[in-house]
């Protein structure tokens, strides 16, 4: 093999007690698409920060085209020809596309516009240079990020989980762009935890687990099972078995729900209709930013409708649009929000105190005073029943890993014995073991007759657990699709808003 473009030898990085990267070796060949595969928390992001100069390694050495490389800052990395497209984009929403690009690339505005259009045509990255970024779809924003990187003439382009924000059809378009880039002489580092994608596009894959390299393979020569074993250290857990649903009475209904947010960057919801019955799981597919945040707050009660339009949200057969979160919970509603820290739990408080937040009606408060004994007992039961790995009820919520904290929050809400259970992105940033456990619990709960609503960006997850799926796109909800009679591509069509035509 020719001299690698980038080589890492024994790279290590630790944050306090956590060893994020341990003795990582990596060789990226010129003109190749190289995958970094690993679970959440395996150390992929840390490794990319080291390569992009955001952080400096504690040990080991980096070589760039065979010569030693030290990077003090992202600017230094860019000068060497390393560009990065972040998972959460580093664009400025109130500026236009061209203004965003001018911050990175020197030159006259007119020349830059010409170059943007030229690159767009060459690599399939069409975007309006004069649009404000907050008006663009997520896919368009990603294109802006990629163009911005390309305009600095990189030799290596790092993409952090680029497909997690795209509908399936746009993924194909992105892959086509990446192939053209490779053929044009650029190497791509492609970070992902999705096995099939890596098999589809990458020439080489380096697999990380718990900060160490556990494999360095040609992904086309291995099947998904092999890759999964290297990634999680055992076989991929099977999805929970699903008995046919036995839907009972209607528990949640949206009837022509309309809502216009105050926030000019928010997404107005138009004429939404949804019916959820006890004993079934309904999934809301779609990419965040299409109204997910607004819908979730309207269902949880964080946003209340005016009294006149309260009938647009029906819970347990009653108009509930005007009710606040506490009143909805009294009707038998429980909710796991998208952000664990901040909305689901309070970082600096113990688990026992976090139990109090929603479980206080279960006798954890007596005559206005906290019954600490009961709270601890409740928390102990939650920890035991839901396999939360922690030292006990006094552990701080912020000290738990994402997966364990999520298991705790889901467990706490389940112990409220809800009739209607709503989860937003339940397994986002959660390791595969915990995600599987949460999904199994949800299916078991459904079999007991609970109505469950799940908003998720992970299509695979929805296919594993949902009886029906509706797609949220541009503030509109698609008709209900029976999961068994639906293919992921059908969901994808609704995601890009072409569902009605198809």
């Amino acid at each position, binding site marked *: 093999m020719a001299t690698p473009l980038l080589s890492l030898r024994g790279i290590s990085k630790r944050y306090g007690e956590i060893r994020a990267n341990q003795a990582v070796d990596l060789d990226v060949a010129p003109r190749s698409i190289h995958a970094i595969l690993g679970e959440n928390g395996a150390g992929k992001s840390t490794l990319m920060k080291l390569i992009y100069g*955001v952080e400096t390694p504690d040990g080991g050495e980096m070589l760039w085209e065979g010569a030693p490389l030290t990077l003090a*800052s992202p*600017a230094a990395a860019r000068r060497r020809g390393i560009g990065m497209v972040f998972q959460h984009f*580093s664009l*400025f*929403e109130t500026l236009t596309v061209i203004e965003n690009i001018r*911050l990175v690339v020197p030159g006259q505005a007119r020349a830059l516009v010409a170059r943007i259009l030229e690159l767009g045509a060459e690599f399939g990255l069409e975007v309006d240079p004069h649009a404000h970024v907050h008006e663009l779809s997520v896919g368009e924003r990603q294109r802006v990020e990629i163009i911005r990187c390309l305009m600095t003439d990189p030799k290596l382009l790092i993409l952090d989980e680029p497909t997690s924000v795209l509908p399936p059809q746009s993924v194909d378009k992105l892959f086509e762009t990446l192939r053209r880039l490779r053929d044009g002489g650029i190497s791509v580092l492609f970070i992902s935890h999705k096995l099939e994608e890596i098999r589809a596009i990458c020439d080489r894959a380096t697999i990380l687990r718990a900060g160490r390299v556990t494999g360095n393979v040609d992904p086309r020569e291995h099947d998904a099972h092999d890759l999964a074993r290297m990634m999680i250290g055992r076989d991929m857990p099977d999805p929970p078995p699903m008995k046919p649903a036995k839907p009972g009475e209607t528990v949640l209904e949206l009837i022509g729900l309309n809502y216009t947010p105050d926030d000019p960057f928010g997404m107005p919801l138009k004429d939404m209709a949804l019916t959820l019955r006890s004993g079934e799981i309904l999934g809301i597919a779609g990419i965040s930013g299409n109204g997910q945040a607004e819908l979730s707050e309207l269902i949880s009660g964080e946003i209340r409708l005016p009294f006149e339009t309260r009938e647009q949200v029906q819970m347990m057969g009653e108009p509930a649009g005007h009710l606040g979160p506490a009143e909805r919970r009294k009707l038998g509603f429980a909710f796991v929000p998208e952000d664990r820290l901040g909305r689901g739990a309070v970082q600096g408080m113990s688990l026992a105190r976090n139990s109090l937040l929603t479980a206080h009606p279960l006798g954890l408060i007596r005559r206005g005073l906290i019954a600490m004994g009961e709270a601890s007992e409740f928390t102990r039961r939650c920890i035991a029943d839901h396999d939360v790995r922690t030292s006990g009820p006094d552990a701080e919520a912020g000290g738990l890993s994402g997966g364990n904290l999520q298991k705790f929050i889901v467990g706490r809400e389940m112990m409220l014995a809800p009739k209607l259970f709503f989860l937003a992105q339940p397994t986002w940033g959660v390791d595969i073991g915990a995600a599987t456990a949460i999904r199994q619990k949800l299916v078991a709960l459904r079999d007991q007759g609970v109505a469950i609503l799940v908003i998720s960006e992970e299509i695979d997850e929805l296919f594993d657990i949902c009886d029906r799926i509706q797609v949220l796109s541009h503030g509109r909800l698609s008709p209900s699709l029976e999961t068994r009679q639906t293919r992921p591509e059908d969901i994808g069509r609704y995601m890009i808003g072409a569902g009605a035509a198809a």
Partner: protein
Amino acid sequence: MIAVEFILSGMLAAATPFLLAALGELVGERAGVLNLGVEGLMALGAAIAFIIVYHGGGHVLAFAGAGLAGALLALLFAFAALGLQANQVAAGLAIGILGQGLSALFGKTYESLTVKGLPKLSVPGLSDLPVVGGLFVQDPVVWLSLAATLAIWATFAFTKTGLLLRAVGENPKAAHSIGYPVIAIRVAAVAFGGLMAGFAGAYAATVYTPLWADGMIAGRGWIALALVVFGTWLTARIFWGACLFGAVSLAGLAAQAGGVELPSQLLASMPYLVTIVVLGIISSNRRLLKLNGVASLGEPFKP
């Protein structure tokens, strides 16, 4: 008619202390730093400038000294709030109190002394117009402030420096990740804010009312802070806001001179009342604030 003429001719001069301080604060806030110490920075600048003019140093040196003192005190704020990531509100208040204390200390022996202000320059032709003619007879600092307003507006509208300040204020993380020194940019913006606050204080003490009295800034720094929000972080609106406050504070005087029987305390409190009312109206429009507001304002950033 006489009242209108009086207000028009004095409005710009009355507005200048607000305007200079608010423009400086605008630059800092656009970069994401909330410096509540403007009142103290102005007070310090006022004392330094008065002392220099009193001892015959002249106005140019006085403004330079006041600006330098304001910038240095603002850098102390930057050290606490940006270097050590102290809470910006607390650090700003502390620096403001320090500035007022230093001002009282330096100015102690100058109480009630006066100096000579600056001569006015008039625009030939325009200044002879009826009613509005007074608008075109102003001291040099007013003319320079108008030029500064235009320059800052143009900086935000057309230059990369302006773009960079807005970017750092909207999303410091992203600015850092594309390779800009966020902290250094913010420190520079804060120092500029201090410089302008120092100028504002110097104008108040040596040109507008060339007389030293402790506490002479009298809340104008706070109004300048409110003006930045009032103007929804837009230079042109801040200019018109400053003119409005200048006019309102003169209207009180005009009313008294015209024999309107109102308690002088009420008239003196008019600018502050107007501030509260206008801020209330602006804040109720969330859309406006979100579109023009600074997303990371007041939040510490750690690279």
